[in-house]
């Protein structure tokens, strides 16, 4: 694992605070007035030049949200969020919507360059910049640029911001938006439906294997601003797409809210592979600042033999509340969830998945690796259920927790419900600690504390790392080392 060495190098380069994406972009922004009201919803809708039906959908959600209560069942603890003290729309003045690359504010391009996000198509094609990936870059509430759109269009693939899709492809949006996560789903999903700002829209036509990786990169910059991303991916019959999501935010003393909704739909024989590397600012070692990440992600395997695979690497955020799930509706459909959740400092993670088996012979697999260090709390919460018609449903779940130090916590809360006697569900769970003997053995061979921990943890998460797209494996191994910096001693 050559990455281990580099990890240590990187850790050393980072200043007192280890979060390397913590810089702020100084750019003129347009903000909606603080607080939430019907007027704000109208303001956002108008900014995005949305049709009337979209506005109505938002307003319905808004009215419903007003009657809802924040959920409290997760094992996380934080002061009550004042939803009236937030900005719900923030956009760089220069970039109210996606443009072609040469029209984008250089300050924004510089930001993404610093983050290591390849936006320059020529450089990507020439192999100068990173992997061959098409990127949708979302800055606070708006998508600032989407690369390789034209190239993708040649294969019939639509890849654009959701705002653009609402205007340009209303028939698809109307048909699928809210069809997996209804606007009434839960407190945060409903809030998102009312005020969602930007996110990506992907449509893969019948029989097409998307010619490149697609990726959206979310950046929260503005203070006291909520980011409400909304992503919708549709894979028609027999199609395939691999999609990656990345996230960072500046270091700020206040908490910032991120409440996203992601909906995936696969029709017959289609497959979506959705990978996330979540590296929002986690707050400092004392728990000050950091992102509150309340996310609803759900995929619907609507067609027979369809497949949805979630892979997530969660290292950031002060609070993570996130359960990427699969509704296995189609016969023979398959859902997968591979997760690495790392918590350090005072981070709190409550994350897991739901595999809802409706179709005959549907199958699912869950591999969850939780790593807790510092004074963090890390909970796996998962549901596996079989409907009475889901004959032959199968699930395999493996939940492993690793503890570093003696002030953190790991918790596993599995829910298993079967209404069909032919369903077979297996659940395995382990909890372990990095032993003093393992540390000493590595040190005796010349490794420092940090090198030893990075090596042992990378071994622990190996099964999941292998599920990531090639180009993100090395990146993730480094990230793991950095996230656990300062976890011993």
């Amino acid at each position, binding site marked *: *694992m*050559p990455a*281990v*060495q580099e990890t240590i190098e990187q850790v050393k380069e980072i200043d007192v605070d280890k979060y390397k994406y913590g810089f702020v972009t100084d750019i003129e922004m347009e903000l909606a007035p603080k607080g939430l009201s019907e007027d704000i919803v109208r303001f956002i809708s108008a900014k995005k030049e949305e049709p009337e039906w979209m506005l109505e959908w938002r307003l319905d959600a808004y009215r419903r949200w007003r009657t809802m209560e924040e959920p409290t069942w997760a094992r996380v603890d934080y002061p009550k969020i004042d939803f009236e003290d937030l900005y719900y729309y923030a956009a760089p003045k220069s970039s109210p919507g996606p443009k072609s690359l040469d029209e984008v504010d250089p300050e924004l391009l510089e930001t993404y360059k610093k983050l290591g996000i390849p936006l320059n198509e020529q450089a990507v094609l020439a192999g100068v910049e990173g992997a061959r990936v098409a990127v949708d870059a979302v800055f606070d509430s708006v998508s600032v640029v989407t690369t390789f759109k034209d190239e993708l269009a040649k294969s019939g693939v639509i890849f654009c911001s959701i705002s653009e899709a609402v205007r340009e492809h209303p028939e698809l949006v109307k048909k699928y938006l809210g069809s997996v996560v209804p606007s009434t789903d839960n407190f945060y999903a409903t809030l998102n439906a009312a005020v969602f700002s930007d996110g990506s829209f992907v449509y893969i036509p019948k029989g097409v294997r998307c010619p490149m990786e697609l990726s959206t990169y979310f950046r929260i910059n503005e203070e006291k601003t909520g980011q409400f991303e909304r992503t919708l991916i549709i894979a028609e019959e027999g199609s395939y797409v691999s999609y990656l999501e990345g996230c960072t935010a500046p270091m700020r003393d206040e908490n910032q809210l991120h409440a996203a909704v992601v909906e995936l739909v696969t029709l017959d024989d289609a497959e979506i592979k959705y990978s996330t590397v979540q590296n929002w600012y986690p707050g400092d070692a004392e728990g000050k600042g950091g992102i509150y990440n309340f996310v609803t992600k759900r995929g619907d395997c609507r067609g027979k033999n369809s497949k949805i695979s979630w892979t997530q690497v969660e290292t950031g955020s002060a609070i993570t509340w996130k359960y990427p799930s699969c509704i296995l509706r189609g016969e023979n459909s398959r859902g997968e969830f591979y997760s690495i959740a790392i918590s350090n400092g005072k981070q709190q993670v409550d994350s897991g998945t739901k595999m809802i088996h409706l179709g005959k012979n549907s199958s699912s697999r869950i591999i969850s690796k939780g790593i807790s260090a510092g004074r963090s709390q890390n909970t796996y919460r998962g549901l596996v259920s079989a409907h009475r018609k889901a004959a032959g449903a199968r699930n395999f779940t493996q939940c492993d927790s690793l503890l570093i130090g003696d002030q953190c916590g790991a918790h596993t809360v599995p829910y298993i419900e079967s209404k069909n006697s032919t369903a077979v569900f297996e659940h395995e769970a382990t909890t372990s600690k990095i*032993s*003093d*003997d*393992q540390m*000493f*053995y*590595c*040190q*005796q*061979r*010349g*490794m*420092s504390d940090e*090198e030893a921990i990075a*090596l*042992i943890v*990378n*071994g*622990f*998460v*190996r*099964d999941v790392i292998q599920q990531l797209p090639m180009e993100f494996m090395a990146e993730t191994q480094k990230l793991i080392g950095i996230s656990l910096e300062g976890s011993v001693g």
Partner: protein
Amino acid sequence: MLEIKNLHANVDGNEILRGINLTIKPGEVHAIMGPNGSGKSTLSYVLAGKDDYEITEGEILFKGENLLEMSPDERAAAGVFLAFQYPIEIPGVATMTFLRTAMNAQRKARGEAELNTPDFMKIVKQKASELKVSPEMLKRPLNVGFSGGEKKRNEIMQMALLEPSLCVLDETDSGLDIDALRVVSDGVNALRSPERSMLVITHYQRLLDHIIPDVVHVMSAGKIVKSGGKELALELEENGYADYVNAA
């Protein structure tokens, strides 16, 4: 190379080492024999810098430096190697990955450049074949599911790769059959050189038939109670430790 002076060490308040004096010169191989519980393994851990031991008196000089002030990884980079009696398992970490991380960590600590992949592979393949370590074993997670013989061969292979100047072998013969003992001993003997010293800890004479020591020490109740040439080991094999245990 190594000078241990009046070394006293406690574990949980119990004194295990009670005044060890030992000097090993470059190129020498010393054997320490003694009954169970005499403090042999404790001495090896104290040399390597394990946490659980409290040094109450005495000092250890390694190449003239105060070893007790160095952290375990600093000692490793300075050239102290401990072949463990019970090598530790690290799930998910391929043996090859472990070797590479260890070698590069030491090189870096000494201010040397890291090995590139082709060079590293070449060295590992050569050392592995000398110790009959299969390429398949190099891919398996470190020590996980290894047989006793595989674990010990892996220890000696690491020793060969890291090229330490002081090798401490803690009961390397335990759990080995005759054939494995030969492979391991050949591996150790191949590493003998005028610049390298070894401290071989064992219960039994049979290892010393293969790795012939310059000096043999008998340890009992935390002290070295007798030192002699290689013939001392034979005498112990004959008469047992009883005399020395009683003497201590």
